């Protein structure tokens, strides 16, 4: 790069700075407003003035009992974490077979994975609930409201995308090392555990993050399949917002503080792994 910039280059650099500034404003204004409201005393929200008379840091303390936040976050971490982990492991098995073997029904299976992705989730809610009730009556163990049930549900919904993602990663890894391990007398499971698993780790991280996001963001299934003890943070916030519709007072300051708190962990996780995620999408998307 030469020391002095050409006029043309300077023009493009300025244009880039302006473009980035505009997009940054578009992103940041709503975020700044959330922070502002979260620090506004509840009595002043909606009072007409944008700036509060004093900073209401107490919103961040008062929000916990108002929306049952701690319990919601704890349940969300348990449910999304386990669903993401299990979905990744289960999808690994399928992706391995799909990427390494030619067999009858392989293509059908892969196409049905895409088809399943297009089924509207609203459509499955009631029949799934009915099936779970039938099973729980048959084995006389309570299932609705258990962690187990909602975790299995989310991990299954995450499976099609997880299988595809891991499949495209698998296809990029040469099979030579696995063959070598096999020749050396490893069993199939050992080959997957000691050869495939470490090579696929970046792909598995991406898969985990996407499955985790799916479970963390869902409201529909959590609102039906969880009980008061197992409800996720999405449900507790949604229930709190809709309590305003039925005439209750919504404490917007506390609600914004709670929204920010419940969005933060997931943002941090995603941003930590963003390098893998961009790289993973790059390899997956370019290959198609």
């Amino acid at each position, binding site marked *: 790069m030469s020391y002095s910039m050409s006029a043309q280059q300077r023009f493009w650099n300025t244009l880039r700075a302006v473009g980035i500034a505009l997009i940054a404003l578009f992103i940041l204004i709503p975020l700044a407003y959330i922070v502002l409201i979260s620090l506004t005393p509840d009595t002043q929200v909606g009072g007409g003035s944008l700036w509060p008379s004093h900073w209401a840091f107490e919103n961040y303390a008062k929000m916990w009992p108002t929306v049952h936040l701690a319990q919601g976050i704890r349940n969300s971490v348990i449910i999304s974490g386990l669903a993401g982990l299990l979905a990744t492991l289960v999808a690994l098995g399928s992706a391995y077979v799909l990427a390494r073997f030619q067999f009858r029904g392989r293509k059908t299976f892969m196409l049905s994975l895409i088809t399943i992705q297009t089924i509207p989730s609203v459509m499955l*809610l009631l029949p799934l609930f009915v099936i779970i009730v039938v099973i729980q009556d048959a084995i006389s163990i309570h299932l609705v409201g258990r962690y187990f049930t909602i975790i*299995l549900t989310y991990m299954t919904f995450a499976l099609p995308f997880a299988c595809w993602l891991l499949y495209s990663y698998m296809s990029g890894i040469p099979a030579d090392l696995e063959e070598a*391990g096999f020749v050396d007398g490893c069993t199939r499971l050992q080959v997957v555990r000691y050869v495939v698993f470490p090579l696929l780790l970046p792909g598995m991280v991406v898969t985990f993050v996407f499955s985790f996001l799916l479970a963390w963001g869902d409201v529909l299934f959590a609102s039906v399949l969880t009980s008061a003890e197992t409800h996720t943070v999405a449900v507790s916030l949604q229930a709190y*917002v809709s309590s305003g519709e039925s005439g209750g007072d919504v404490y917007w300051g506390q609600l914004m503080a709670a929204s920010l708190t419940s969005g933060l962990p997931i943002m941090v996780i995603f941003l930590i792994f963003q390098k893998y995620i961009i790289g993973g999408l790059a390899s997956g998307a370019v290959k198609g």
Partner: protein
Amino acid sequence: MSSPQVPLDTVGTAYTTAPPGAVRRKRMSMWQRPPYWMMLPSVALLLIIVVAPFAVSVYASLTKLNQYTIAHWTSAPFVGLENYADAFRQGNALGASALQSVWVSVSFSVATTILITPIGIIAALLVNKPFRGRRWVRTLFLVPYVMPVFVNAIVWRMLFMNGWGLIDQVLAGLHLANKDTFWLIGPRSFWAMVVADVWSSWPFVYLMVLAGLQGISSDLYESANIDGASPVRGFFSITLPMLRPVLGLALLLSTLNHFNNFTLPFIMFGTPPSPQADVLPLNVYITSFQTFNFGLGAAMSLMTLILMMIPAVFYIRMLRLGEATS
């Protein structure tokens, strides 16, 4: 990423000690019988949690399943295609008819996809070339995408709040609109939903385009530069054509995702929403769980599925094309 500890030296000894034919035979045997059991958990879960409910739902769409017949749902009266005919008729007291919802959903996914595409492409181009602080800008651009949908919906519900929401205040301050514009009910609720969705979903296109840009060789631009082509010309004759496959995929996936978006309107407007914002998934939810007409709800969601299959078939076709060329 550190490379895994594979005992490479033992691979070498295996080659020297075992006769070559035996090694080849063993390698062949590795790929002969697929370990189907590894797929078993996925298949079983998908069958129980997706396929079986789906089948029940297809059956339910042909019956008069409502709050009176749900207790003995297996013996609900069979009504054939009556629910499908009902879906096309004018809606009940609550919300819009299915046909109107189809229209709202299609316009919603088309409108958002059209809006997010240029934003995503421009954003990706802005951060494609290295500059100081690029890492931070890239991180910032991902923030809306990372925010959970329910948080996004709550935030925009507040931003659009009538009278005191930021948007009403700013528009009134600029004398562009009345303070009582009512963004969350009536015809404007559609646009409120589009804006909220654009804010949170453009980084998807940005991510896909950014990924696609990594695959374009810089040689192309250099030779274009030598030939005297301007950067604008380079964009239209090199970048855009090279991005076409990725862009096509991004647009299709985005259309599908928006069509199925339930959480955003559900939290932004509550139930029932204004007819103008009554997207199909929300309408199905209300029909099934608030008016308890499960049969009709199932019929409506099957119709949704058929609509969704149109872009999905395109997608599958594209994948086939990819297989043929590679």
